[in-house]
């Protein structure tokens, strides 16, 4: 029942291996020439970003546009529910590691209850009661440094810490070990690309605004990523991040009237 399929094993090994190769290929920008102190690999990160934008233009954006047009609202909600449901074991695992046992228990209950519908229909009273947690947040709660900014092909923006977290989350997710017939296997294989298209469709206008209207889409993406990630870590792990928050920046701005 819980044997690891060979294809899953290959894909699990491929992610960190590719990341290591990518890092090895990165050449660091001298500190005084960086556009952002957290981004020493800006040259190679921008190449990965250009690749991701190409992928978006030719595959993801048209697919997301079609998905928005064709898929009824109820269908989209069911798919979003299923994707959220598959993330619940990781939330249980990471909440327990962080000592947030209420969230761990709640996510476990939500996972069991919604397994009746394979997560397609949310049967719980308050779906937003569970606060999603990943291993990157767990590492943050253990004061592991954030690491450098990394734009990863296909996966998008990350920090060293969040990328390591993603690898651990994919390895520890019990859904990866399921071997229960062709239907489940197909769902397993289909889930990552469907999740990507669904996410792109949900953020269609906002994403296009960054892509087509920014002065520098790369720099804007980096800023949005850091602020979003800092907000999640601050709100859910309760730890101040390594980065200056918006509050800090406005405070020093108001202290200096020039």
């Amino acid at each position: 029942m819980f044997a690891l399929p060979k294809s899953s094993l290959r894909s699990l090994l491929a992610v960190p291996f590719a990341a290591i190769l990518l890092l090895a290929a990165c050449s660091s920008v001298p500190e005084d020439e960086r556009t952002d102190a957290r981004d020493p690999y800006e040259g190679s990160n921008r190449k990965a970003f250009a690749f991701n934008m190409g992928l978006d233009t030719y595959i993801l954006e048209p697919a997301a546009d079609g998905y928005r047009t064709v898929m009824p609202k109820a269908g989209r909600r069911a798919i979003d529910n299923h994707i959220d449901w598959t993330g619940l074991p990781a939330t249980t695992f990471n909440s327990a590691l962080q000592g947030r046992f209420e969230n761990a228990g709640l996510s476990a209950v939500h996972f069991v209850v919604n397994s009746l519908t394979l997560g397609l229909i949310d049967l719980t009273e308050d779906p937003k009661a569970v606060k999603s947690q990943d291993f990157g947040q767990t590492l943050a709660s253990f004061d592991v440094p954030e690491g450098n900014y990394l734009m990863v092909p296909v996966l998008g923006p990350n920090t060293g810490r969040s990328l390591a977290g993603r690898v651990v989350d994919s390895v520890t997710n019990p859904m990866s070990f399921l071997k229960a017939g062709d239907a489940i296997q197909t769902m397993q294989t289909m889930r990552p690309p469907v999740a990507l298209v669904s996410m792109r469709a949900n953020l269609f206008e906002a994403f296009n605004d960054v892509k087509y209207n920014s002065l520098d889409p790369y720099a804007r993406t980096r800023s949005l990523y850091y602020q979003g990630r800092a907000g999640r870590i601050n709100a859910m792990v309760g730890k101040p991040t390594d980065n200056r928050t918006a509050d800090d920046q406005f405070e020093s701005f108001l202290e200096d009237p020039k």
Partner: protein
Amino acid sequence: MIIKSQIGILTTYLRAWLRGGFVCLCILPLFLTSLPARASDQIAAANNVITSMIRDVETYLETDSGNVEKRTENIAKLLDTHFDLPGIARFSAGPYWRAASEQERIDYIRTMRDVVIGTIVRNFDQLSGLRFTTIDSQAKGDKMVLVRGSFNDSTGKRPAVSVGWRVITPATAPAKVLDVEIENISMLVTQKQENITIIRQNEGRFSALIEAMKKRQPAP
């Protein structure tokens, strides 16, 4: 005689001390009550700006005929009335504001204002049907208030969006909006980091940012 005079001096000191103490006791509650009073004034001023701004937007939406010139005029008025444009310009230029010449600063404020107006005018239709509800207002120090709320689509087609308005509340000037946070992401911090990247890529030339902004503006 000596004892009497010593008692007199002591009494004088005591009276002076009591008077001083009395004055202090009178002033202390005033001082203590003025702190929350200032905070509540700040919050009221910030809430008023947001309420007034939202009311103006709703009026413009009701009377909007799609005429671009009229829209531009309305949005310009909205920005000049409710937003702290010089503050937005100074913050978004980051450390390079100090190095910019007076002329560059003027050019930058003008270009930034045009870009913001153009962006809102082009996307004005998207504001239709949205209703803003204030959730709470929190003083951030004695010069700023964060008014948090959400935009809800009255047609139910779009999900609710959480929005925060950072309003500066100087004691001697009217309160004005400095920043908008969408889903806890500051638009001004994002713009600042993007601007800094562009200036650094161009060897610290502030004018490069102004040129890049002008290039992005659609032709009139």
